[in-house]
C-alpha cells in the first residue's frame, strides 16, 4: 500500500501533486486552475479511498508549480488539500493549503447587482468564517457563501 502511494507521488519528476481533495471537488479544482489549458501531463484521480476524507481525489500536474493566488483558489475549493511540490523526483515541499483572510479575484459575488458582476472589477472578499466558509463582499457588502469563478 505504501509502495503504491509512493508510486503515485513519484510518478512525475517535476511538478505538483494536489492530494486530499474531496472527491466531489476534484473537477472544480481542475477547472479553477484551468488545467485543461496545461500543455503537459495532468493526471486526475477521484473516488480514491482516504482515511481522512472517506473518498478523495488527487491531481498530478507535470512541470507546474502554483503561485500563491492559485494556491488560495485551491484552498477555497478544497480546504483540506495538501500540496506536494516535486523536483527531480524528490518531494521538495509538502504543505497544507490555507484559506487567506482576504480573497482577491478568487470567487465571484453571488449578488447579480454587485458592481463586480457588471464592470471589469476584480472581486475582493473578507473571510468572516473559515469553516463553513463565509465571506463579505468588499464592494456590495453582502455576506455570502463562496461561488467559485
Amino acid at each position: 500500500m505504501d509502495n503504491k502511494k509512493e508510486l503515485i507521488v513519484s510518478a512525475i519528476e517535476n511538478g505538483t501533486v494536489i492530494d486530499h481533495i474531496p472527491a466531489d471537488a476534484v473537477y472544480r479544482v481542475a477547472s479553477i486552475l484551468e488545467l485543461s489549458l496545461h500543455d503537459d501531463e495532468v493526471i486526475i484521480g477521484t473516488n480514491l479511498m482516504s482515511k481522512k476524507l472517506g473518498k478523495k481525489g488527487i491531481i498530478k500536474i507535470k512541470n507546474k508549480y502554483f503561485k500563491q493566488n492559485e494556491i488560495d483558489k485551491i484552498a477555497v475549493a478544497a480546504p483540506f488539500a495538501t500540496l506536494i511540490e516535486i523536483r527531480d523526483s524528490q518531494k521538495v515541499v509538502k504543505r497544507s493549503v490555507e484559506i487567506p483572510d482576504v480573497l482577491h479575484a478568487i470567487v465571484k459575488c453571488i449578488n447579480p447587482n454587485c458592481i463586480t458582476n457588471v464592470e471589469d472589477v476584480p472581486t475582493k472578499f473578507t473571510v468572516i468564517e473559515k469553516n463553513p466558509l463565509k465571506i463579505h463582499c468588499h464592494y456590495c457588502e453582502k455576506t455570502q457563501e463562496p461561488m467559485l469563478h
Partner: protein
Amino acid sequence: MTNLKGKNLISITDYTKDEYIQILDLAKEFEANPKQPLLGDKVVASIFFEPSTRTRLSFESAANMLEARVIGFSNPAATSLQKGESLHDTIQMVSSYSDIIVMRHPRDGAARYAAEVASVPVINAGDGANQHPTQCMLDLYSIRKTQGTLDNLNITMVGDLKYGRTVHSLVQAMCNFKATFHFVSPKELEMPESVKRHVQDAGLKYKEYTNLEDVIPFSDIIYMTRIQKERFSDPMEYEKVKDCYVLDAATLKGCKDNMRVLHPLPRVNEIAMDVDKTPYAYYFQQAQNGVYVRQALMAAILGVKQLKN
C-alpha cells in the same frame, strides 16, 4: 480635533460614532447659519447615474449655499456612458474636473469602486440597494434634534424592512446608541436575519410585530417606509401587502408627546395627509435637515471645517 479632510463616505460603517456626532454638531452650526462662502474655490461633481429628486437637490442646494460651483449630470443617457464608457473611465475623468464627487449609481458597490479609482474624495449618495449613508446621517440628526439625545430610545420601523436600505443602515448606526428596536412588517417583508443579528451582537433588544397599533404607546420614533412595488416579482404579492400599514392621525392617539414620525420619502399612502397637521409629523423637516448634514459633510471632507471633539 478630528480631521475628515479627504476621507470618503461610502458606508455608514466608514465613520466612527464620534465622527457621526461631530458631523451632527457641525450640521447644527449650518442650520443656524446655512449661507457661508466656505467653498467658493471648490467644484463639486454631482453625478447621478439614476434618477433622484431629494438627494440630488439637497446636495446641490448644500453646495450652492456654501458657494461651491456644481457640475455633473442627472441623466446618464446624455453622457458618454451611452457610448459604452466604463465607470472607471468616467470617474477618472470627473475626478480631474472636481474637488469632490457626490455619486448615485444603480449598482451595489459602485461607490466603493469609484472611491478606489478617484483622485478626489467620494460621497456615496446611494449605491443600488446597498448603502445611503447621508440619508442615515440626516436620520440621526433628525432623531437627535427631536428627542434631544440619541441614547436609549425606542425606535420603531414600519413597512418594508426586508428591502429598505435606509432602515438597515439606521439600525446599524443606532446600535451605537443603546436603542431598543421595534420592527413592524408583514411576514413577507421582515427585517433580514443579518440585521437582527447585528442588534443581538451589540447586546441590544428588538421585537417584531405585525400590528402597528401595538407600538404606538411607547415609541419615541416611528420610522415609516414605503412598500416598493418594484421589489415584487409577483404583482399579487404586492397587492396583498401594499396597504397593510397606513398611519393616520387617529392611529396616533395615545402616543408619547415626544414621539415623531420620520419617513425617507417619497411617501405613497403609508402616511395619511391628516398626520401632516399633527405635531408628530417630522418628515418634511427631516428632508430639510439633509441640506445641513450634507453641508457639514462637504465642508469637513473638503477640509474647510474641522470637527470639534
